[in-house]
């Protein structure tokens, strides 16, 4: 009886599954119809504004006697490069392809130009309809090419602002292990505070960067995607780690929690490296001693943030595990600096800053969950509240140095 009804239901199910294709087929038909009659619709509404005809200037690089301008057509309609100006002067130029760009197509404009080291410079690209898009570069600096020296240089920048301070911060571990439980809770709260700060900072950075992108490729949706991707990945990861260490679904603790914090910080440092690398390559950043010291002070607190949950474990952590944690949290800055220094990275930067925000938010949640259950006095103890606020204050104060 039941077998019979099951057999009777199966063709019906299959039919309804097939039905799922019907809206798709109809959609294709509707799109074709609307596409074919698009112009009359515009006629009926009587509104047909001209395209903006502005280029998206993606990257301006400087080589001896030469400026290279990478432009993208961000709009629906074709866009033609007509004239190119440097500091309000028409200049001869060469193109690496056709001058008319379809939607989201890019071209590189090569301008022979005797630019002046360290001077501000403005490049402009005028469309065939006369609309000029300009990009002001605060200081013209030769863009480092990919060479042994520049790879090493960017690597060192990443090492100095990422790995070194995190590793130094981790050296507080033995001291933290001797701390009274309520003070350790304060340091855990401090970790939550500084991660919250990083999350807000990264989110704001992601939103700012996406606003500067051509609207066709940008959009706040990209930020949400990056955020959700890392947040949910880390949720899954923490779930796995939690089971692995305790065998039960309690809050993540100890080294497992420290690992998660390190991953969150690592993602943030990747974005930071990306930003430093590209700003430096494009001459937007004076990378001096002050800047390096500022970033080191800023990031040393990140090491402390990883050390605090690790200290809670009580048992000695192997040095190699600490080194791995320092690399997980710090080394992405090196990768970021390379990527930012050598490639166009605007979309990548948005995604990674959004991912950093998502990761930091997830880790804050883990830390808070831990503090709520395990710390003496829970979330409302003065140590925890003070620690959290101190975390924010420390990040703000050291951020002023950058």
């Amino acid at each position, binding site marked *: 009886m039941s077998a019979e009804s099951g057999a009777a239901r199966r063709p019906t199910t299959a039919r309804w599954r097939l039905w799922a294709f019907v809206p798709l087929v109809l959609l294709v038909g509707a799109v074709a119809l609307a596409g074919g009659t698009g112009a009359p619709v515009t006629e009926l509404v009587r509104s047909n504004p001209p395209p903006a005809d502005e280029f998206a200037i993606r990257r301006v690089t400087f080589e001896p006697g030469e400026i290279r301008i990478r432009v993208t057509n961000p709009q629906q309609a074709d866009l033609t490069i007509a004239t190119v100006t440097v500091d309000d002067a028409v200049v001869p130029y060469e193109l690496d392809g056709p001058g008319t760009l379809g939607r989201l197509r890019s071209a590189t404009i090569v301008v022979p130009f005797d630019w002046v080291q360290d001077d501000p410079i403005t490049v402009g690209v005028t469309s*065939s309809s006369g609309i000029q898009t300009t990009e002001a570069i605060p200081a013209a600096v*030769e863009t480092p*090419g990919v060479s042994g*020296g520049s790879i090493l*240089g960017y690597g*060192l920048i990443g090492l100095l602002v990422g790995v070194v301070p995190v590793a130094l911060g981790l050296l507080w571990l033995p001291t933290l292990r001797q701390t009274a439980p309520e003070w350790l809770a304060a340091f855990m709260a401090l970790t939550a505070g500084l991660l919250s700060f990083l999350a807000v900072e990264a989110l704001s950075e992601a939103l700012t960067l996406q606003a500067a992108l051509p609207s066709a490729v940008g959009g706040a949706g990209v930020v949400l995607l990056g955020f959700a991707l890392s947040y949910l990945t880390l949720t899954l990861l923490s779930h796995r780690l939690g089971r692995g260490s305790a065998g039960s679904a309690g809050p993540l603790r100890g080294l497992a929690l420290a690992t998660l914090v390190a991953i969150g910080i690592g993602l943030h440092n990747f974005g930071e490296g990306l930003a430093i690398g590209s700003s430096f390559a494009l001459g937007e950043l004076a990378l001096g001693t002050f800047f390096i010291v500022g970033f080191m002070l800023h990031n040393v607190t990140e090491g402390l943030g990883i050390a605090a949950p690790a200290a809670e474990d009580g048992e000695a952590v192997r040095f190699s595990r600490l080194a791995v944690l320092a690399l997980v949290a710090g080394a992405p800055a090196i990768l970021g600096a390379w990527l930012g220094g050598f490639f166009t990275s605007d979309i990548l930067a948005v995604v990674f800053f959004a991912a950093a925000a998502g990761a930091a938010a997830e880790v804050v949640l883990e830390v808070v969950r831990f503090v709520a259950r395990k710390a003496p006095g829970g979330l409302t103890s003065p140590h925890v509240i003070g620690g959290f606020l101190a975390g924010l204050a420390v990040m703000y104060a050291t951020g002023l140095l950058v």
Partner: protein
Amino acid sequence: MAGVPLIRFAAGAEGGVERFAVHDQAALGHASMIGDQVPAPGAPGALDSLLLPTPPLPHEPGRVREYRLQAIDREIEVAQGVHFAAWTYNGTVPGPVIRATEDDLLRVRFVNGGAHPHTIHFHGIHPANMDGVFEVVDSGDEFTYEFPARPYGMHLYHCHTTPLKKHIHKGLYGAFIIDPPEPRKPAKELVMVMNGFDTDGDGENNFYSVNGKAFYYAKYPIEVRRSETVRIYLANLTEFDLINSFHLHGEFFRYYPTGSTDFFEYTDTVMLSQGQRGIIEIDFHHTGKFMFHAHQSEFTELGWMGFFDVVD
């Protein structure tokens, strides 16, 4: 800090080698570009109707000189590949050269074929009802301006419908020459109307030119003979920028402000406010290519630059 020299190394920007390399490749500097390498629109001779005026006629009081000007909305190429939705008299910016001898009776029939109301306002001496201020000609309508041509000199005409800035920068203007009763001495005569184009509508000019095409006379130098006086009827119809100027290389010239008296200045640079004009007379001492341009460097590099090719 150990980091600092390493970072400089990564930047690779301070070495003397690179600095010299920069200057080695500066041969393509744009200020001196001439001939085929110049990014300029238009074919050879394309601007001849604006550059070369019809010859002057002898003094004959009461003779009727008839012109027909039509306002036409038209897209024109003002710089290489850059198209501008212009308002024109007879399809060009500047409009055609109007020429009469003093005491001729000028009869200018104006037909408005544009989408907006326009007028023609002539500089010179004429009755108030021929001034192109109150007689606004609607789209599709027409009006005939009639008045005796005086005083002699280099003048100009332009639309005087409000908003003025819009009607002038869109291209409704041109040169208006009134010849003296006593003819000027023979010369190679040229007309140059200095102007600018705000192609993106931000209230600032994107390109500058004489006679409407940026860098045109750099691509096609104007050939003149050393034995012949060169007479330029020069007017400034640049909108937005308060002044424009004319500077000649390697030579001096006589400049007659407005060209209505014998007074002249001997110089190589003159400055003209919006609406100012005059007559330049050059007797070249040397053959060769001599640059002429606005002495506002910005205007020069945005199109207001050309060459005389002086030959024997």
